[in-house]
């Protein structure tokens, strides 16, 4: 972890070309140190903070008064640090019968923040102070400080579950790891109002900046793993499957078992796992297939790369298959030499400096908090499967000299259907999620799709795509409206980016043209409405053989159906109800 001094030095760096976010910092104790640490840590992560610091003890006033400096500052984030220390002081000063009330009031205040501020809120939870007034009996009486404090922390989590704008920065967890004596500088506090030691501030700042990063889309999505002495003890190629250390029998196998259990939980959360090992592939895979104590199995690994190429080369390959940025990937390897080479060649990749002793791997990795997220849903769960299939396609593609041979070999099939009760939810969802391949970016609700279906002058065609590796489901939709007896207009055409470069648009156009001809149309008109995200399809109609209209304020593209020749495609139609 960078020291406070190093973070402070960062403030001299020129960040004028980097993103900047407006942050209001509210505290009930001195916040200038925290402010410096937050700014310095943000710079570490490649962005800067424009901070408004309220005078301390003004939290309530700044929040409640709509004309306050806080509100007129219009922050992107409000960071609130209310300390356990001050809460304890309040508690101690109150009459015994009013003490529980303090916690209720605090909770009510925090609950009001999202509505009053209507922006992203980062709230430090409460590290515990055991005032030892009741001893262990604190746990048995509601009036003890510790009882109420733990309850408050729990209630804050409940609030976070139901309030997307409200994020907890887990200071309590930081104190659990490093200890209260490390976090709280008792002697210094007496003369300064500083409640967090200079040594601990970078840890706090880091956890808070993790949340800002995650909200702004900086997330780790993939974990790349070395094998020998990283996932198990020993060298599989030399020691063989009987002698590698994993499980509760041999040597420090237990450390690797627990390490794998952690990785498995990440995989279950939706982190993609990849293996990158200097090994013979069949030997490297053996423990995953045959060792009874292995926690991770081949089905958990989206991409398995074991060969004698350099790790840099292999990591670049993994990145290409997954098509995600290096900055969203983490590489774990026990070998300091490999780590340094990889770090040097791929600076954006995160390469943790694993401790020498595998027994220390986990606690060290816990402390880095690499896998921050601000959401979790079921959609995250089957990601491994999707990427495994994509990896197989990439592998196949590399074995063909030409794109065409590859596409032919995929054995692609598509089912074409009009909207029905099964596919309407997916049609609506695809229209809402597709940003890049979306010609006019009209969003349809399920109701809208039903209306199109009921309108005799409108047609909607939905396309699935399946190949020999798996079924992508419904991936493209075209909505057509009748302009006049001879002319059909493409209201919208959108497609999932997962199936780019398969020639899907040629297939779709062939189908649409033949449906239009059956309905007596002579020409088809398309329009491209640019958005910040759909430049991908700016030449869509042109490349499909449409011609641009002569008179145009509007950019309309025409296709003459009588002279249209079906476009080459490697997708065969499984006719639905067209």
């Amino acid at each position: 972890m960078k020291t406070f001094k190093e973070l402070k030095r960062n403030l001299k760096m020129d960040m004028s070309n980097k993103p900047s976010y407006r942050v209001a910092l509210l505290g009930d104790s001195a916040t200038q140190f925290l402010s410096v640490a937050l700014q310095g840590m943000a710079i570490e992560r490649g962005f800067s903070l424009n901070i408004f610091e309220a005078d301390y003890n003004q939290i309530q006033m700044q929040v409640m008064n709509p004309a306050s400096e806080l509100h007129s500052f219009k922050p992107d984030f409000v960071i609130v640090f209310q300390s356990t220390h001050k809460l304890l002081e309040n508690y101690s000063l109150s009459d015994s019968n009013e003490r529980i009330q303090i916690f209720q009031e605090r909770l009510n205040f925090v609950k009001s923040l999202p509505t009053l501020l209507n922006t992203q809120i980062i709230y430090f939870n409460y590290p515990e102070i055991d005032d030892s007034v009741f001893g262990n009996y604190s746990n048995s009486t509601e009036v003890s400080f510790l009882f109420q404090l733990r309850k408050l922390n729990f209630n804050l989590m409940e609030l976070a579950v139901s309030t997307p704008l409200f994020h907890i920065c887990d200071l309590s967890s930081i104190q659990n790891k490093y200890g209260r004596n490390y976090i709280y500088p008792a002697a210094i506090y007496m003369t300064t109002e500083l409640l967090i030691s200079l040594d601990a501030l970078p840890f706090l700042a880091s956890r808070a900046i993790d949340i800002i990063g995650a909200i702004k889309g900086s997330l780790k999505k993939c974990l790349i793993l070395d094998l020998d002495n990283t996932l198990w003890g020993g060298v599989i190629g030399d020691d063989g499957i009987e002698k590698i250390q994993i499980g509760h029998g041999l040597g420090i196998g237990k450390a690797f078992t627990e390490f794998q259990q952690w990785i498995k939980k990440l995989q279950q959360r939706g982190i993609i796992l990849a293996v990158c090992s200097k090994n013979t592939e069949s030997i490297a895979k053996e423990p995953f297939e045959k060792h009874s104590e292995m926690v991770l199995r081949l089905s958990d690994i989206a991409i398995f790369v074991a060969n004698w190429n350099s790790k840099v080369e292999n990591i670049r390959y993994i990145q290409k298959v997954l098509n995600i940025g290096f900055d969203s990937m983490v590489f774990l390897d026990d070998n300091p030499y490999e780590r340094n080479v990889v770090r040097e060649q791929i600076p954006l990749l995160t390469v943790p400096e694993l401790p020498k002793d595998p027994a220390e791997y986990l606690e060290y990795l816990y402390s880095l908090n690499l896998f921050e997220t601000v959401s979790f849903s079921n959609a995250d769960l089957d990601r491994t499967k999707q990427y495994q299939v994509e990896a197989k396609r990439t592998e196949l593609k590399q074995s063909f000299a030409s794109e065409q041979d590859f596409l032919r070999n995929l054995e692609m099939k598509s089912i074409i259907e009009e909207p029905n009760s099964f596919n309407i939810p997916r049609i609506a969802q695809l229209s809402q999620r597709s940003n890049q391949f979306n010609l006019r970016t009209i969003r349809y609700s399920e109701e809208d799709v039903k209306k199109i279906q009921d309108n005799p002058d409108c047609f909607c065609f939905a396309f699935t795509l399946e190949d020999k590796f798996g079924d992508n489901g419904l991936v493209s939709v075209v909505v057509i409206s009748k302009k006049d007896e001879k002319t059909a207009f493409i209201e919208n055409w959108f497609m999932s980016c997962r199936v780019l470069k398969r020639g899907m648009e040629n297939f779709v156009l062939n189908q649409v043209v033949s449906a239009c001809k059956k309905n007596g149309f002579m020409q088809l008109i398309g329009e491209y409405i640019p958005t910040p995200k759909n430049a991908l399809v700016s030449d869509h109609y042109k490349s499909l053989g449409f011609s641009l209209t002569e008179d145009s304020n509007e950019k309309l593209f025409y296709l003459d159906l009588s002279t249209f020749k079906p476009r080459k495609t490697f997708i065969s139609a499984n006719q639905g109800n067209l």
Partner: protein
Amino acid sequence: MEIMIQMQNIFRDIFDNDSLVISEQTSAVDIDAWDSLNNIQLIVAIEHQFGIKFDSEEMTSWKNVGDMITCIIGKIQ
């Protein structure tokens, strides 16, 4: 004097000034950047350097660098 050299290095580091020269008489009035924020950084750096811990009364009693050094000597002997 060994301590004085170490102190000077700490001061140079905290105040980010490689040519800074301090003496036993140097106090907060002599160094512009010696504000409360830097003062705490200074205290923590000295504690780390000498492996000692100051109590709150000591922190408020120093008038100059000489007082600090006297206090440090009392702790490391």
